[in-house]
């Protein structure tokens, strides 16, 4: 807030929504309104950026001015009378919103079932490509969605023009789906503000205008430093953080200091489920900019799956987990065996002062040994204590306390005693006599002295991983066990107060915040890229990782294409399955030997050609593995056909409803029923015209095809349940309903048709492991009985299904499913054909 200056001449008075307001000259109407607590909708305005006037949401009426000026670009003037919320303005904003949404997948916003959907599907589906809000990682914080829901009408007149841009996943850390972009300009404007010459701007014009780098080079080559500001400011799901994207709305704003290098930048973290899932700059200005490590590596280091979580001691030549007291006791006894001068401590200087202080005290007082701190980001070779190095090489140093992964194998082997305090397993922990797990980064409270000498406080955001503890605490207890009195530190404050004259760390040579080339390659002596794989793509060194060879035998992929956004049609050579497949059956796939076993319904097969066809929707790791394969690749395992085929329905007229992958799944059923002489009415449900597929094939095997879209862009507005209701209402005698698709759709159809007196079969899709009845993971309650979907199903009487139970069991591994998504950069993105309809299909 502005403060009143001494001279009242410097203030301006105006009226906004009949409220008298005083503000400073130079403010915009939007700013003045916000100061007064009056909220005007806006998307492209941002407190940290100059006015831009792109979205036109913030239009207002001002007495004496023509038209509807944008409040973000209109400066205040004395005596101005402003209205922000009139019928006319609402109408205008609704139109603006329609224009914005015509270029942004909006089917969930206009869907009549949105409330139910969000109730029954509280978590966003982890789709590769967002085709609507329910499949968008930004759903819970989306500004466009927020306005659309709170301010605007559900019915829109303009169809969505889906651009069919490729999903851009070939850069480290970030994913870009420009089909969601509303061209608000925030990303390149913030980039320009922070970095001067922006790495990105708007390319092309008109409908094909699109944010990108010059000449479409990769972001790595464009000069982008991966500060993440564009991601953090993006109001939609266009720009996302590959690691954090599926954690939903977290708790923002926990400030601390990054200790990965001596610059000690301030960062704020986002927490989700007691986990730091991302870190970002504390405010959008040049001074606060952070580097790729601070923005993207930080959370991944903290959450590394290999984190050391318990203390280990060497027993019978093997590292064995023990309790903390046993570990401390063991280490103290071990270190007591050595003479002064035979011991040394080597630690990373990128650490809080309290840890460094006690390392030093412990070394000098408790061990009477030599202390060396390695400059941040460096390895052992960079220690500037040649005599220590020489003594180590000469074997004069017998016992080493190592705060990281520093010594090379020969030196490690030559040691008599090695105690490692670290957070990840390493060459050093492998050889160690004891391994003590330590708290790192946002798990620490304390102080950090940066390379300019400034002391900055750290504030703990989360508990340490497992049983890991701060190093100062470990060293205090070790000193206690070695009978050193005078270390009565009850808490970290005691240690902090004890520190005098600690030196400022050596500056890191280079500017990581301004150049990817200057990023420090190591933390605690170990290559960062070994833990954060995407760092390899910005040029950081790493140890070679074993590459899983792609299977060279198994089931060959003959055809692989993205038929509509996020849906892939995959044809596989599998003669035996093709020979015995029946309508409604499924297969279980494992892409390679480390994959999950995941069921997929057969969308088609050709017994003569010996092939089967699946429709795969990318919604997580396992489907993602399939999506990244190409024609000619092999899938390690395909088992099937599994499940019981759909029992031939009684009666003449069968209405089949399919949505999402279910469109593919009902195709063989329609074909079979048609061959049996039934009257087949097919209902195809898609969120929008651009996700509708196989329509022409269905016309060949159906007596009637009803197209339903959630946004009404093609066919009727609504879903399968509206179509089934429509059939009953218009007097069509239907003998059997069949619905296949997402659990939500089948549940809605069930509720809608409950009183129609017409039987309903649904194909259930719980989590499975073996798929042959062996494990029971897929059990579900049908009426009063527990059934196994794999061998009793997948088809059941929909009106008997316990949908709440099925929904909960499908979500049993929600957290693990997020963790399982690999963080490597995808270097082999597939091209999506740009369809001629462009999604604007108003032809029928």
């Amino acid at each position, binding site marked *: 807030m502005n403060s009143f200056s001494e001279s009242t001449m410097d203030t301006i008075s105006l009226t906004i929504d009949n409220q008298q307001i005083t503000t400073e000259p130079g403010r915009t109407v939007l700013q003045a309104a916000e100061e007064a607590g009056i909220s005007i909708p806006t998307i492209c305005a941002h407190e940290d950026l100059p006015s831009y006037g792109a979205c036109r949401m913030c239009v207002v009426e001002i007495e004496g001015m023509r038209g509807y000026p944008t409040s973000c670009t209109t400066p205040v003037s004395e005596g101005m009378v402003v209205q922000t919320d009139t019928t006319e303005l609402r109408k205008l904003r609704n139109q603006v919103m329609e224009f914005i949404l015509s270029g942004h997948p909006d089917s969930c916003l206009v869907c009549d079932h949105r409330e139910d959907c969000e109730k029954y599907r509280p978590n966003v589906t982890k789709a590769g490509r967002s085709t609507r809000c329910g499949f968008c990682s930004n759903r819970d914080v989306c500004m466009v969605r927020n306005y659309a829901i709170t301010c605007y009408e559900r019915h829109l007149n303009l169809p969505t023009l889906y651009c069919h841009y490729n999903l851009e996943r070939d850069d480290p850390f970030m994913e870009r789906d420009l089909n969601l972009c509303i061209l608000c300009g925030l990303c390149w404007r913030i980039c320009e503000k922070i970095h001067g010459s922006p790495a990105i701007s708007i390319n092309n014009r008109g409908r094909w205008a699109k944010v990108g780098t010059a000449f479409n080079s990769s972001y790595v080559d464009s000069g982008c430093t991966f500060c993440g500001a564009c991601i953090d400011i993006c109001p939609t799901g266009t720009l996302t953080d590959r690691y954090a994207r599926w954690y939903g709305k977290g708790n923002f704003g926990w400030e601390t200091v990054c200790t990965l290098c001596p610059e000690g930048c301030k960062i704020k973290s986002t927490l989700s489920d007691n986990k730091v899932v991302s870190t970002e700059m504390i405010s959008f200005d040049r001074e606060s900019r952070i580097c790729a490590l601070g923005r993207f590596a930080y959370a991944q280091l903290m959450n590394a*799956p290999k984190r050391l979580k318990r203390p280990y001691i060497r*027993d*019978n030549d*093997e590292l*064995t*987990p023990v309790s903390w007291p046993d570990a401390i006791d063991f280490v103290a006894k071990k270190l007591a065996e050595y003479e002064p001068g035979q011991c040394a401590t080597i630690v990373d200087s990128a650490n809080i002062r309290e840890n460094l202080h006690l390392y030093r005290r412990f070394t000098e007082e408790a061990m009477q040994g030599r202390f060396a701190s390695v400059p941040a980001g460096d390895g052992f070779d960079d220690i500037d204590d040649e005599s220590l190095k020489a003594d180590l090489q000469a074997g004069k140093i017998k016992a080493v306390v190592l705060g990281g992964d520093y010594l090379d194998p020969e030196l490690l082997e030559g040691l008599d005693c090695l105690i490692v305090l670290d957070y990840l397993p390493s060459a050093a922990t492998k050889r160690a006599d004891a391994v003590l797990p330590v708290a790192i980064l946002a798990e620490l409270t304390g102080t950090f002295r940066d390379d300019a000498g400034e002391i900055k406080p750290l504030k703990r955001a989360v508990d340490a991983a497992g049983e890991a503890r701060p190093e100062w605490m470990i060293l205090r207890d070790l000193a206690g066990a070695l009978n050193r009195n005078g270390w009565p530190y009850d808490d970290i404050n005691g240690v902090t107060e004890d520190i005098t004259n600690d030196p400022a760390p050596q500056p890191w040579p280079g500017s990581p915040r301004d150049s990817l080339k200057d990023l420090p390659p190591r933390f605690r002596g170990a290559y960062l890229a070994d833990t954060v794989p995407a760092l390899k793509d910005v040029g950081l060194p790493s140890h070679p990782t074993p590459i899983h060879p792609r299977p060279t035998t198994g089931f060959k992929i003959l055809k692989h294409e993205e038929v509509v956004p996020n849906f892939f049609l995959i044809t596989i050579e599998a003669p*035996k*399955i093709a*020979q*015995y497949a029946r309508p409604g*059956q499924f297969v279980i796939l*494992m892409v390679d*030997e*480390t*994959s*999950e*076993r995941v069921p997929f319904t057969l969308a088609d097969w050709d017994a003569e050609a010996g092939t089967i066809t699946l429709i795969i929707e990318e919604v997580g*790791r*396992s489907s993602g*593995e399939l999506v990244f394969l190409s024609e000619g690749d092999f899938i*390690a*395992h*395909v*088992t*099937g*056909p*599994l499940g019981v085929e759909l029992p031939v329905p009684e009666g003449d007229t069968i209405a089949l409803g399919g949505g999402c992958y279910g469109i593919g799944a009902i195709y063989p059923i329609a074909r079979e029923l048609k061959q049996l002489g039934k009257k087949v009415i097919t209902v195809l449900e898609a969120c929008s015209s651009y996700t509708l597929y196989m329509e022409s094939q269905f016309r060949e095997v159906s007596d009637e095809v009803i197209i339903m879209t959630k946004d009404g862009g093609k066919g009727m507005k609504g879903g399968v349940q509206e179509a089934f209701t429509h059939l009953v209402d218009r007097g069509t005698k239907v003998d059997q309903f069949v619905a296949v698709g997402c659990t939500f759709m089948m549940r809605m159809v069930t509720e809608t048709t409950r009183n129609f007196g017409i039987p309903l079969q649904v194909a259930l899709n719980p989590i499975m*492991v*073996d798929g*042959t*009845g*062996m*494990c*029971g*993971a897929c*059990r*579900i*309650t049908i009426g009063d009985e*527990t059934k196994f979907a794999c*061998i009793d199903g997948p088809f059941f009487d929909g009106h008997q299904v316990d949908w*709440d*139970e099925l929904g*909960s*069991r499908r979500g*049993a*591994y929600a957290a*693990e*499913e997020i*963790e*399982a998504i*690999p963080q490597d950069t995808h270097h082999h993105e597939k091209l999506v054909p740009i369809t001629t309809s462009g999604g604007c299909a108003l032809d029928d």
Partner: protein
Amino acid sequence: MSETDPKTPPKKKRKPKKPKVPRQPMPEQDATRRARNFQEVPYGYPPETAIIEAARCLQCKKPLCVQGCPVNIDIPAFIKLIEESNFEGAAIKLLEQTALPAVCGRVCPQETQCEEKCVLGKKFEPVAIGRLERFAADYVREHGDELEAQIDPPTGKRVAVIGAGPAGITVAGDLARLGHKVVMFEALHLTGGVLMYGIPEFRLPKDIVQFEVNNLKKLGVEIHTDYVIGKAETVDQLLNEEGYDAVFIGSGAGLPMFMNVPGENAIGVYSANEFLTRINLMKAYDFPNYATSPIRAKHIITVGGGNVAMDSARCALRIGSKSTVVYRRAREQMPARDEEIHHAEEEGVEFNLLTNPVRILTDDDNKMVGMEVIKMELGEPDDSGRRSPVPVPGSEYIIEADCCVVSIGNKPNPLIPQTSPDLSITRWGTIEADEGTMQTSKPGVFAGGDVVSGAATVISAMGQAKIAAHNIHLYLTGGEPDTSEEETQTEEKEQPVTSE
């Protein structure tokens, strides 16, 4: 070092008298340490110890131990060879009767079979037959000795073996050696059946199973994984359309039973099969390198008292959870091997005996938060002769836990029975087979293992498989069925408990 001859006790005239040396203990991993890792618990005998133990054998003229063995291994003969430091010879002797010596040496309940019958055991401790069997098999495997398998000339006959578990492997091995063309069909992506998905690594290392399966390939057995008979070809089609002369069904007891208590479909309640499959077969403990979601629970309650329950309870410890067993009878009635119960106790599994689940408590998200149990007492003996547990009214209490592993047994997998109309099925869903020949009601179709016996042990499955193989051979070569090997050693149990 196999040539060194340590102090062998004099062994000329053997009479059942006190042996000079006691039964040799097998070194094993310390309990507190092993409770946190998946490495094998016992280390196995070193050669010197094996020779000492082998020398304890009295070499009885009429060896009772052989009668105790479901697959009739010539036990004194292979032990004699070990004593003579002819480890390879011992392994070959074993292979005459068993396709899986390294497996059987580990997981057979020897204390109720061969070792129970050992004459020495009447007064002293029996010869450690199982440990010696394991030693011979391991020694040959680890020293890379290629054993020359004796394969008879091709007969031109083709046999389909359904299921690559212990029964199928045994049948395949025996028939391949007799010169028949054997084709195996396995529904999962790896061979081994319960040896792979069920029995944990710390009890049976998986590379041993794969080694033994590879030996089958050397015998010319063709193996198809990812192949579900009953869903692809039926048994009839194998015989009538695919040209097989005989079929052996060894599809196991892979259909888990649940308790039928309220809340059983909560998140966090697993069948033992699923729990063990995620860990053993899918390697979820190495998540996210392996994509299968791991089970992350603070307190896991295993319901049941069989070997599978012990495996589950011990796996629970190893994935970092507190582990409690709830079993409705007393310790003496637990069907698990003593050794397994002992190992579980040593490692820190808690036992709530004479206790039975009443219901699973859940939160609003259908996640398990606890289990209500009731105390039991032993009442009158039931049909099996065991005193049956009776609830103590009013003794209900709640155990806080977020995971439950239901390990109360399995029923046979229905895929084959459902799709083979003229196969006689018992009221328990098992396939009816003649005990003496393992011939089913359908000509040319034999069955063995848990799909016949309900749910028993690896070795009893192998025992039935040996009988089946012998009779399939006779069937193929025009001989009369031979019912002389009536020893099947399937023990009646209170409730079926999955093999081992």
